[in-house]
């Protein structure tokens, strides 16, 4: 019998800590599939964030390091500069990348570091159980905005792709979603393109992925996917925000 579907080699045989319906498992798998397909597992170095994906080194079957909260792009910068023939990526959530690590992501982009950034936007601090994130939508209820995010008090969500698109050092930016099978396939293609850009020494690229957090959104997994489609992606519009193409 021919095997047509199996666990990617780039994933370990581990049970994850992720909640039912969480998007991290899907995104981990997409990254692992891409790394397998590009045959770069043995030269890939991942940088894990602080947040739900903090244990990524337990799930990915290649070299992965921890980094302090928000500092993954700084850590990745040094690794890639010293080992330019390795493939280096950071995996970061919205709190990590768009709040505490804003300086690091902007300046890594400005330096045009030849790294891939996988940015998982689920509009909430997941690991700490659902506080307002820099990407929490206006009106959205969280444990620190129990009456909904009031932009007069809590400010506006940060649109990372739009923000980074202004920076000359960036080669490729795309916002995708994993709310449907089609979009999961699209997301995988975007991740692959980002890694290929790195292989081509094309400079900084970031894929922002709209991802469900059913437990902290207090929705069923199915409703969470619908909410991404009907609400979240209206504010965070999917699409390519910058693409310099291959040099």
């Amino acid at each position, binding site marked *: 019998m021919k095997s047509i579907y199996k666990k990617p080699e780039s994933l370990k045989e581990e049970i994850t800590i992720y909640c039912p319906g969480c998007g991290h498992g899907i995104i981990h798998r997409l990254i692992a599939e891409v790394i397998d397909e590009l045959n770069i597992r043995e030269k890939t170095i991942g940088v894990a964030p602080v947040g739900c994906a903090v244990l990524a080194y337990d799930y990915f079957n290649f070299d992965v390091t*921890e980094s302090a909260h928000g500092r993954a792009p*700084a850590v990745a910068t040094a690794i890639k500069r010293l080992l330019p023939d390795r493939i280096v990526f950071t995996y970061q959530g919205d709190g990590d990348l768009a709040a505490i690590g804003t300086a690091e992501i902007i300046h890594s982009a400005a330096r045009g570091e030849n790294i891939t950034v996988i940015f998982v936007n689920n509009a909430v601090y997941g690991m700490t159980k659902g506080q307002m994130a820099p990407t929490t939508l206006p009106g959205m209820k969280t444990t620190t905005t129990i009456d909904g995010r009031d932009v007069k008090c809590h400010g506006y969500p940060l649109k990372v792709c739009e923000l980074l698109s202004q920076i000359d050092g960036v080669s490729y930016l795309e916002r995708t979603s994993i709310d449907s099978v089609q979009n999961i396939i699209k997301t995988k293609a975007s991740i692959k393109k980002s890694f290929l850009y790195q292989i081509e020494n094309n400079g900084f690229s970031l894929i922002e992925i709209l991802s469900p957090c059913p437990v902290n959104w207090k929705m069923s997994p199915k409703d969470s996917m619908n909410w991404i489609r009907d609400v979240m992606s209206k504010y965070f519009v999917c699409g390519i925000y910058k693409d310099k193409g291959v040099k």
Partner: protein
Amino acid sequence: MSKYLLTGCEASAEAAIHAGCKFYAGYPITPQNRFPEYMSKRLPEEGGIFIQAESEISAINMVFGASVCGFRALTSSSSPGISLKQEGISYLAGCQLPAVIINMNRGGPGLGDVTPSQSDYFQATRGGGHGDYRTIVLAPWTVQELYDLTYIAFDIADKYRNPVLILADGVLAQIMESVKFKKKKKKLPIKKWALTGCKGRKPNSIKSLFLTPGVLEKHNWKLYKKYKKIEEKEIRYEKYFCDDVDNIIVSFGTCARICYESVKILRKEGFKIGLFRPITLWPFPYKQLQKEIEKIKKIFVVEMNLGQMIDDVKISNIKNLPIYFYGRPGGGVPTSEEISNFIISCIKGRKEDL
């Protein structure tokens, strides 16, 4: 062998290059701006990477990344900048990553001033960042010693997989002195734990997070054993005129150098006084100082701060001798004459001990 006339920053940077350092990240801050300037030119010439980071925080985390993949890495800064690096130093300690951090201490607290100080003694020797950890602290008193200690700091950091801090100050950063170079290191230790891509081996990971109950406790005890070993093996100090003494001065770094002149003045005037100079501030030479204290009558502690080393001297003071303190905080630098005058006053009973 020829000598080179260099500022402390340049000498320390050159020592790092000679020790095989391949990565430097830093952020401008007075009085150590010559450090990143010098590295920006010299390190790429030697095949290394220089990055001017967007912040002190980013700089220390870049050093973290460089260390993760097995390279000798360095950052330098001055007091407020070193405060910002503390989280990164805690992570380096937790992840057991070697790195060298240079602090050209200036006056504080807060923004303070840009003149030389020793006011970061507590921060350097007591941790600075969060968690149960220790940082090896080396305190040079000349540009030559700053060179020598920077050179060996990388070996010590690699040997114990632990960050090493060099606590110098604004004087040592900017003063120009002649320096003898050591041989450029060719053979560096192999680091099997480093992340280089998992070709031909199982994947490596670097982490300081241990969520399973009891595992972090074990990790901490493992670190404790390492720190005990460092306390046994790595203590450095020097003593001067201590063979025939009634009193000794305990002082470190630039201040010790000024005290050395004070001792010479005092001995000319017939006072039997010596100087004890800790070179490792952690591990502190408690037993070695204790041995000196056994044969004297009075202890003088002289620092360019409000007396931060006194706590450590007290631990060595098993005879409960009177301790006299002379300090110049906030960027003040004492002269050898004002120190010797203070000591004469103390010996003649005109000053109170602590």
